[in-house]
């Protein structure tokens, strides 16, 4: 076993035992932060499926919001179980992704322009939620109708530990999908498309099909993340789940971690959430806005000084340290 695998297995064991480790009065809080990290890492991983191939979307808030609201509205109005609602949400989001991405691919809307079109889509979803305030609750948001008791069907549980394990499994599933895509033909094809679309098409790569496939996968996974978030928090709000703000936060976390590696999105998300929580605890209700100010400042500094992301840069450093050592041993 390589040392990386040992560390990974040990980390997984600690995470699996998470809820039973002695943490005193901090347990609920630590579990809460970890659940958030799992869910947002999953969403970040979904975004990076597109982002790493040059499809930089600033509109993933649209997919997140559509997913979360679909499930919440279906449950509140018709009592449809989130399991089915989630399927509907993922399907709807895929359709939305297709409606946006197909013309983008067809009319060669790429780079900054793709980012701006997706940004507009995110804003459209946010504004529609606010405009349809009669049944979406507008900017006040919407609470999930509480189930009278713990219910698998309603996906509602009083105990945080259930959500902890559920989000852990979700996160691992996200990593598995990312890994599968990374090892598939689609990755080679998408990389070729990202380099030069015309050249890719000329060697027989179905450019549109691969782009659409990756986009729909990314969008529907993001919707699933939105469902998970809504079920855990039991409250949805257009400003936290759709629009430019949340879209930027997802991208930040991923780029911060490094979008070309399996664990990059997780590292970035964990760091941004931990940082946000730390600043919130430090400043509390004093100096309102200071925590976010420092957050923004650090983001700029990270982007300037660690362009490959934290995980990516760290890996480069470790590789740099390992190489001379191996050379030395080879000489002996």
């Amino acid at each position, binding site marked *: 076993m390589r040392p990386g695998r040992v560390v990974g297995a040990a980390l997984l064991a600690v995470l699996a035992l998470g809820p039973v480790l002695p943490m005193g009065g901090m347990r609920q809080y630590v579990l809460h932060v970890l659940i958030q990290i799992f869910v947002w890492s999953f969403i970040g991983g979904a975004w990076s499926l597109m*982002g790493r191939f040059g499809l*930089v979307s*600033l509109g993933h808030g649209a997919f997140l919001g559509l997913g979360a609201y679909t499930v919440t509205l279906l449950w509140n109005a018709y009592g449809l179980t989130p399991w089915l609602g989630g399927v509907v949400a993922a399907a709807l989001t895929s359709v939305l992704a297709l409606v*946006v991405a197909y*013309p*983008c691919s*067809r*009319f*060669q*809307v*790429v*780079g*900054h*322009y793709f*980012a*701006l*079109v997706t*940004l*507009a*889509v995110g*804003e*459209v979803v946010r*504004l*529609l939620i*606010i*405009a349809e305030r009669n049944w979406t609750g507008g900017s006040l948001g919407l609470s999930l109708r509480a189930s009278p008791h713990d219910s698998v069907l309603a996906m509602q549980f009083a105990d945080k530990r259930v959500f902890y394990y559920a989000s852990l499994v979700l996160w691992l599933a996200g990593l598995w999908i990312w890994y599968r895509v990374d090892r598939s033909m689609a990755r080679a094809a998408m990389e070729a498309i990202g380099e030069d679309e015309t050249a890719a098409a000329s060697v027989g790569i179905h450019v549109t099909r691969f782009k659409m496939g990756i986009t729909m996968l990314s969008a529907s996974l993001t919707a699933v993340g939105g469902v998970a978030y809504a079920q855990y928090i039991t409250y949805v709000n257009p400003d936290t789940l759709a629009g*430019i*703000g949340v879209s*930027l936060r997802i*991208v*930040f976390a991923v*780029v911060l971690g490094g979008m070309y590696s399996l664990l990059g999105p997780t590292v970035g998300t964990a760091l941004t959430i931990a940082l946000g929580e730390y600043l919130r605890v430090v400043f509390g209700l004093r*100096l*309102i*806005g*200071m*925590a*976010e*100010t420092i*957050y*923004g*400042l650090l*983001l*700029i500094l990270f*982007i*300037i000084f660690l*362009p490959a992301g934290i995980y990516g840069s760290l890996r480069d450093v470790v590789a740099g340290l390992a190489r001379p050592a191996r050379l030395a041993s080879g000489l002996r």
Partner: protein
Amino acid sequence: MIDPIFLLEAAVNGILLSGVLALLALGLNLIFGVVDIVWIAYVDLVMVCMYLVYFLVMIYGWPLWLAGLASVALGALLGLGVHLLIITPILGSAPVNQLLATGGLLFFLQSFATFLWTTDHRTVRLALPILEVGGMFLSFVRLIAFAISLLAMIGLWVFLRRTYIGTAIRAVSQDREAMALMGADPQRVYLVTSAVGGAMAGVAGALLIIQYSVHPFFGAAFGPLTFMICVLGGLGNMVGAFVASVVMSEIISIGGVVISTEMGYVIAFVVFIVMMFVRPGGLLVRRG
């Protein structure tokens, strides 16, 4: 049924709003065209300038025109600062990093403004009359703002057409690679562009504070709209920017009266998305 006079009033107000929006879109357009980076935080610079005018006029009792000039100067300084501190180190980075760096600036400016000035809405009240024209009520303030926007745009046009550095800026936005070949100093062109773009934000800030109240999230309200007008207008196309601005403001203004404010924006954004597909305005041709 809505009284046609309301629709007419909304249409006129739309045109009046379009002046400032066109100005903003042009400033952003200039930077995007020359430096090839979208400043996500551009309208947040406007927000900072609005606060400056507010404090100078309401607290320190400066006359409005002087505060306006200060706002232009601050805008230019902010533009220089953003370019030197944030853009210069990442000129060679991946596009997503460039977007995010100015996105970080957006978070920073929004929350620092919240920290310094709280989320109160502030506005500069002007004791100017409301004009009544044929049953429509038109704000005199908006008329003035529109006129000054037009003047500023003409000023920008003269600068870009009649001065040496302006010509250099236009040349760069047409062909970036040729700049170094022609022996032009890229950093100098970038700095002037950023300062002029920032100054446009300053002018817009001074014109917006007399019509709207300022708060830390002002940029979030006007930002996406500005990007869209900027792109719709076409790079380096001043007439295009103005036409795009009129179309978008009319949709928002009339849509706001007929349906609701949010739906006005929704329609405008959908129009933007569709226009990007059917009429990319030659932008995408240039990018190949």
